[in-house]
């Protein structure tokens, strides 16, 4: 069998340990329930032999019948309690696992996230862990308890007759082996089915986020067609997976018929030799029926374990991913405005296509850099290196004199503020969108920041103030408002270096003026890097750096470059003037 038992156990150990008290109770209840189930057929045998006159004495038929009912009811109560406990333990354990997994993924580098839809992440964090929760609850109630019940039955059959015991044991072992064999055959199909599900729902998620883009491109039929094509693909995988379940059920039915045949055969043989009463033959038959439930349940729960097996693999695959930007030993960054130094920095997202080539840059604390260049010239890449979304392939990035690979990633990001052109907002309140669930930011402080940004009137226009829910992706907000909220995030973080990536590009001029005043205040006493396509936004820069195809093609004091008619910067200024004259 290829159930990754050791990996199951590692997961079990990690997530069940905090629940040990409940797990102990659960185990106790299960032992009691098994004992009651084993006892009852013995009562039955006594009853049948007494009724058939093969034995005499002892309790009456009626008393035996009542005992039987009492034991059955007792088993029921114990069973319900056990199920409740197992459900509760399972949710606690898997919630912890979900949170750990989500946090792990949330901290992975952007290279990981680029390839994945939020829908796919839901499937991999919630869907896979849900399959695992079956594992937690079913492993006890399903597999372990049933294995114990099976073992108990075998011991009792051996007590009756060693030949019967041997036959039954051989049968049980054969059945388990067969089920395991079938499991091995089916697991790859089930893994592929889950993968197909993740892709299918990932696609649906994209369609749901892209309704506007689909409408304005007249692409409704196209998307519906793609959906139906994916359904066909999904169907092929689902069908195979279902047939595997059919194979499991069918083979269990056939093996049980064999088991019944064996027990009746052995019983008839013993009875003919006077070695067994009719009650004992029935007892053998009954235990064969009774062993059916544990083995069948083991089959069902092995199915779930299989699903969980696929899920375990996928969960571990995620856990095994390491961010390409690991934490350093934790050298602290100095307080206040940060100096910035790039020395011989080269970087490529994919080998052979360098995004930055041997870039040098040096900024004093409080200095403001205007970064210029075409789309794709490496400006955003440079910002990402400063935030340690990536590490340079060659060269060093230093903030406040510290190589940022030697600091904690979180420490770097807490000291560098970054405003992107695409502000990512999520479904949640205005407060949560700005503070990211930080309870330490008071409403008062928040209002103060929003007022500073000129968002006071906007805040007042909201029906529920800071508690107003925002839509996912910032729907209902204009791009300008979204941008201002992003600025508010940075204001609150109080960083030592501020990077504005095309920050004001989407604002209308009046709001832009508003933002610029706010940005002035934000840059006060901080180092700043302004990445802009608009010349107006680099007006406040002390220094200018122009990138082209990842290389520095010009660098110098802004005033000096502007005054030198041969400089690229001056040429760009002229292009700007021409732009006005178009």
């Amino acid at each position, binding site marked *: 069998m290829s159930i990754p038992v050791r990996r199951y156990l590692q997961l079990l150990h990690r997530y069940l340990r905090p629940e040990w008290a409940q797990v102990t109770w659960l185990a106790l209840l299960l032992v009691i329930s098994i004992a009651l189930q084993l006892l009852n057929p013995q009562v039955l045998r006594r*009853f049948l032999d007494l009724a058939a006159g093969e034995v005499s004495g002892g309790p009456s038929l009626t008393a035996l*019948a009542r005992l039987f009912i009492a034991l059955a009811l007792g088993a029921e109560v114990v069973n*319900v309690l056990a*199920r409740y406990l197992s459900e509760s333990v399972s949710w606690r354990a898997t919630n912890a696992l979900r*949170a750990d997994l989500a946090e792990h993924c*949330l901290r992975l580098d952007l290279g990981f*996230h680029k390839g*994945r*839809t939020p*829908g796919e992440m*839901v499937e991999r964090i919630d869907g896979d862990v849900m399959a695992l929760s079956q594992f937690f609850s079913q492993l006890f109630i399903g597999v372990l308890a049933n294995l114990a019940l099976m073992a108990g039955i075998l011991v009792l059959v051996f007590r009756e007759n060693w030949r019967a015991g041997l036959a039954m044991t051989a049968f049980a072992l054969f059945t388990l082996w067969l089920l395991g064999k079938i499991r091995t055959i089916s697991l790859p199909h089930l893994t592929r089915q889950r993968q197909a599900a993740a892709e299918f*729902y*990932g696609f649906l998620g*994209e369609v*749901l*986020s892209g*309704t506007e*883009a689909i*409408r304005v491109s*007249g*692409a*409704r*039929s196209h*998307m519906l067609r793609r*959906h*139906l094509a994916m*359904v066909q693909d999904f*169907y092929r995988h689902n*069908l195979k997976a*279902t*047939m595997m379940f059919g194979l499991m059920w069918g083979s269990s*039915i*056939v093996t049980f*018929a*064999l088991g*019944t045949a064996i027990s*009746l055969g052995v019983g*008839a043989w013993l009875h003919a030799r006077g070695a067994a009463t009719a009650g004992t*033959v029935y007892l053998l*038959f009954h235990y064969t*029926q009774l062993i059916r439930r544990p083995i069948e349940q083991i089959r069902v729960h092995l199915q779930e374990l299989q699903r969980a097996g696929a899920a375990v693999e996928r969960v571990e695959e995620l856990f095994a991913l390491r961010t390409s930007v690991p934490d350093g030993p934790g050298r602290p960054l100095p307080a206040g405005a940060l100096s910035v130094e790039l020395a011989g920095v080269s970087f490529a997202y994919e080998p052979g296509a360098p995004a930055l080539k041997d870039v040098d840059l040096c900024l004093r604390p409080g200095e403001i850099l205007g970064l210029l260049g075409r*789309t794709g010239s490496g400006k955003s890449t440079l910002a990402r290196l400063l935030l340690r979304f990536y590490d340079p392939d060659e060269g060093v990035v230093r903030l406040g004199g510290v190589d940022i690979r030697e600091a904690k990633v979180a420490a770097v990001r807490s000291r560098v503020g970054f405003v992107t*052109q695409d502000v*990512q907002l999520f479904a*949640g309140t205005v407060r949560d969108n700005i503070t990211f*669930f930080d309870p330490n930011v008071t409403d008062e402080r928040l209002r103060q920041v929003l007022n500073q940004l000129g968002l006071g009137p906007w805040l007042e226009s909201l029906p529920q103030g800071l508690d107003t829910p925002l*839509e996912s*992706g910032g729907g209902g907000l204009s*791009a*300008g*408002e979204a941008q201002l909220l992003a600025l508010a*995030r940075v204001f609150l973080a109080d960083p030592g270096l501020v990077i504005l990536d*095309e920050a004001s590009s989407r604002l209308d001029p*009046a*709001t832009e003026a508003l933002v610029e005043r706010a940005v002035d205040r934000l840059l006060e006493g901080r180092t700043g890097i302004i990445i802009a*396509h608009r010349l107006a936004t680099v007006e406040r820069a002390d220094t200018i750096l122009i990138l082209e195809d990842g290389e520095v093609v010009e660098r110098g004091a802004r005033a000096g470059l502007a005054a030198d008619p041969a400089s690229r910067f001056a040429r*760009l200024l002229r*292009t700007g003037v021409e732009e006005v*004259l*178009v």
Partner: protein
Amino acid sequence: MSTWRFVWGLVTYRPLLYLTSVILFTGVYVLPVVPGLLTQAFFDRLTNSAQAGLEPWSIIALLVAVALGRFAVIAAGFATSATGREYFSALLRRNLLERILELPGAAALPEPPGEVLNRLRDDVLQAEETTDFLLDVVGQTTFAVVAVRMLMAIDARMTLLVFLPLAAVLVVTRTVGNRILQNRRRSREATARVTGLIAEMFGAVQAVQVAGAEARVIGHFRRLSDERREAMVADRLLTQVLESVALNASSVGTGLILLLGARTMAAGQFTVGDFVLFVYYLGYVADFTHFTGRWLAMYRQTGVAKERLLALLQGAPPGRLLRRSVIRLRGPVEVPPEPEPPAAGPLQELRVEGLTCRHADSGRGIEGVSLTVPRGSFTVIAGRVGSGKTTLLRAIMGLLPVQSGTLYWNGEPVVDPAAFMVPPRCAATPQVPLLFSGTLEENIRMGFDASAAEVAAAVHDAVLERDLAAMEEGLQTRVGTRGLRLSGGQIQRTAAARMFLRRPELMVMDDLSSALDVETEQALWERLFGKGDVTCLVVSHREAALRRADQIILLKDGRVVDCGRLDELLERSEEMRALYHAGAVQ
């Protein structure tokens, strides 16, 4: 729509397929009647209650033969049932997607996308399973009827008494039905909050990382997960109590047989074989009650799922959910072609009168906006943040529901802008363009039939050709989820290429150049204006656009405050001067 009509609608989508499944599953469940009788015969021979009949060894051989037959029926039944299941969910998802995509594009979802995805996944699955498990219910019921009749023939009084606990289980299940419903609703909502948060936090992962807020977001996630656990345990506990009661009812039933049989057995009227048959069938009938109880609970939960799915129709008649759309699980897929927009002559003039469109939650939007766009003109909409520029464009294209106002195309009123303002009449580049997983070419075409040369021309119009040349796989480059492998400017120009490829009579651009650098932007405008006969309606505050504009529509707080050429407006409008001077390049 009642839950039953809903389930029945799925059953009757492929009636013959479903009927085949019903027959096969009935076979699967009724076959165990035979081994029961064989076992009875065996024990009666053993205790000499019966003198004639099959030899024990023949009985044993027959038992195995029946099991093999059942295996074959199961294989066939699983194949038809899996096919049926796919039809159920594909039909629901297709009808819902079709409806969602015909709604105003910027207001197509009543809930955040993560939550809607959740419904399309879990609620559809719920409906699929309930409809499929009905097969098992039918099969098991048939078995129960047959078995009970046979047992009645042996001992009617005992049969009735023995099955009493089973009937009680069914009654109890029905009684607690409402509680199940409530619990299920609560746990579903709690689950939706958790999955919604996962989608949101990974949708905004860069912002979370920039803010270093990973731990805080996860803290929130843990709180929501905890609420979900409480709701889930309550939900499952009740269902499991019912399940466990149903499963154990058969042991109690066996006890009752013993109690009642104590006298008749001693008198020889009730044989050991009869006892064996009773217990044997009792086990299967208990499975039936257990399963039926479980199915009834599922059925109730399907009622909740159905309501949540109907809510996605947003106003369409409920029957839409089950519309008999064509689903093919093999071979070419069939989709109705993009609906032809209502006929109308080539654009001479687009006129908007008294357009009012407010956002439901904030109440903000546009009020009574009127404007005219003549053919070949370049119209710019300007205004501050929140003045309603994007809302205006969306309202004109039918992407948002409007409260009042009319669109006139060449003087003729447009009844349904959403159906009318589509390619090749009108195409747009949204403010935040969205790309889909797939190649660049797929994203530009999005199903639009055009030659390679036309695609290349659109790429050129969008100033994307240099970027393409730098990509190893050119148009076949995979853009990643939501186009995240491209830069912001590349995404925007890909969306522009998508628009240009459709050669629309009216081009609508919402701040197209915002993520572009000066040179790229200039090239883009030059190529656009170089095309001659183009009609454009754009939101922009760029110098180049404002200068070029034949008219500027100036918006303030959702209303048109002025309209004219740039120099006129600069002369007379304080608002225009404020906008212009703040944005002036020099």
